[in-house]
């Protein structure tokens, strides 16, 4: 019990340490960026301020102090949930984000789950009938689709399904003025979701396919087949089982990719989520907002990568065994 406590304590500690360093990093970049930091607190009022007023304001906000002190103050406020005011929205940063985070979670989360289920299925299918006609066609198509940048893919989808066929809405999360019923939201979700999934699908499906085929060439497969198992059972019972932990790990590492992709897709579809917010805050140099967004994304990513590691260790007995040996063991013995 105590050991487990220490184990989780350690994980938590390293997690917080990572977040802390991340926040320092983000804070420094934001503060070193050109542009008037006062503007992020007072907005356009800054332009009307006299020099003395400016001085006073700077002092009050502590902007004259060294960077470390500033960071300390910022952190003090941040711990209480106060991240300052968004320059563009003239609102508390957390409020601005809070209003939109749900939409991104819906799109990103749904995209993530669909993406990895589909990639696994597609990869398995391709590995099962490797080198047959269907596999080759899928491989060719997949490579072509996977190199298309997300924004152009989104444009194509809009062009085909909204502009030409007039089947689906081209922007937003719901029709304005209608409050957004379930079916309406779903309708608006289809195209962005497709863009997110299509943009990443083949990369992961191809990975699954190749890992499975590589596993099929391993020596132990010969023994398994000598037992009398058929190809499907070998793939399902042995290869897939061995590939899954790696796959879960890759899923965790891929969070920033998928998240970044979601951000781009959101902007193209003018979907009111974190992505459009990132894009706007970057264009209008709204550093307070941008900083919190970067921090938030970072926390999500670090968290998921830690989860991925833990899952990998849980499922694959080799990870723990291999982790201990290190290189000094090599070349030991005859």
């Amino acid at each position, binding site marked *: 019990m105590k050991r487990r406590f220490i184990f989780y304590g350690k994980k938590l500690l390293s997690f917080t340490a*990572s977040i802390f360093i991340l926040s320092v990093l983000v804070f420094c970049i934001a503060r070193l960026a050109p542009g008037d930091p006062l503007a992020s607190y007072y907005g356009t009022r800054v332009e009307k301020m006299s020099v003395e007023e400016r001085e006073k304001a700077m002092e009050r906000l502590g902007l004259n102090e060294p960077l470390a002190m500033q960071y300390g103050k910022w952190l003090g406020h941040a711990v209480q949930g106060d991240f300052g005011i968004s320059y563009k929205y003239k609102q508390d940063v957390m409020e601005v984000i809070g209003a939109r985070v749900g939409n991104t979670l819906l799109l990103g989360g749904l995209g993530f789950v669909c993406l990895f289920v589909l990639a696994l299925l597609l990869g398995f299918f391709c590995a099962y009938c490797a080198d047959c006609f269907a596999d080759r066609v899928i491989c060719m198509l997949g490579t072509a689709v996977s190199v298309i940048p997300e924004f*152009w893919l989104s*444009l194509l989808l809009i*062009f085909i399904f909204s502009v030409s066929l007039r089947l689906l809405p081209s922007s937003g999360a719901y029709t304005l003025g209608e409050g957004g019923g379930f079916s309406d939201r779903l309708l608006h979700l289809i195209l962005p979701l497709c863009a997110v999934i299509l943009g990443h699908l083949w990369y992961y499906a191809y990975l699954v396919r*190749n890992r499975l085929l590589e596993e099929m060439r391993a020596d132990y497969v010969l023994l398994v087949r000598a037992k009398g198992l058929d190809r499907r059972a070998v793939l399902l019972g042995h290869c897939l089982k061995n590939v899954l932990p790696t796959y879960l790990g890759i899923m965790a590492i891929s969070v920033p990719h998928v998240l970044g992709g979601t951000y781009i897709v959101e902007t193209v579809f003018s979907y009111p989520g974190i992505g459009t917010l990132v894009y706007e805050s970057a264009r209008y140099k709204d550093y307070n907002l941008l900083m919190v967004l970067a921090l938030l994304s970072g926390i999500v990513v670090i968290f998921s990568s830690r989860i991925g590691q833990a899952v990998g260790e849980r499922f694959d007995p080799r990870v723990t065994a291999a982790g201990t040996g290190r290189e000094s063991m090599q070349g030991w013995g005859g």
Partner: protein
Amino acid sequence: MNGRQKKKPWAAAVLLALIVAGCVCCEFFMTKDPAFMDLADSERAPGGEFLFGTDALGRDLFSMIWYGGRISLLIGCVSTLLSTAIGVVLGALCGFAPGWLDLALMRFVEIFLSVPTLLLIVFLQAAAGEQNAFTIAVVIGATGWCGIAKVVRTEVQRLRSSEFVIASRCMGGGFFHILRRHLLPNLLASILFMVIMNIRNAIAAESTLSFLGLGLPLEIVSWGSMLSLAQSAMFTGAWWIVLIPGAFLVATLLCITKIGSYVQDVLTRKERNV
């Protein structure tokens, strides 16, 4: 990765060579000045005077494609050079460093990677201030080195304890001898694929950024900045503004990918001695 050897990607190589050659020597066959705007000629359909039509500002797309491709390809190459340099140096440092330093550096990379690349680029871009082709290349390069650094690190650690390096040490080979004669040739082979893919990613990143209005401004012609007019053009039915630059962009990316995966296939085959 298939059992059989991949065919040489001739089609991709020829197409890529054509595009690159066209972009490099665009002066010789451009029909118009790519920067010349004439609102009277805005959004003309392809054909006749304007081979690929004109954009919303009345610029000739045909000339812009080749002229802008030059900037896009240049950004791809420059930022890859930068990211490769950073990646190799940092990766090698991790590989040779004692355990604690290696751990610290890897943690740093992990944190660096934890911010989505787009966000990081946006951030750095905002910090860099003025936007031109060079700053874009630097920003993309400064964010794309993590993959190479990781590969170089594992490779250096593997090679460092490999028998032929020990053999060289037994012969009295010093650090720099081993680095030059044993590590570098083996490293180059293992990161070649990633370097090629980095060019691809950098070109894609440039176009994405410019499309979002965070990269190159409209006046500097590149594939990305041409596409930044696409979204509004789509609703007026000017399909050529969306499809033609996009097709060139995707064709280039696809060709680079094909060549990259062929290179990887050849190298892994060599490694396995078949």
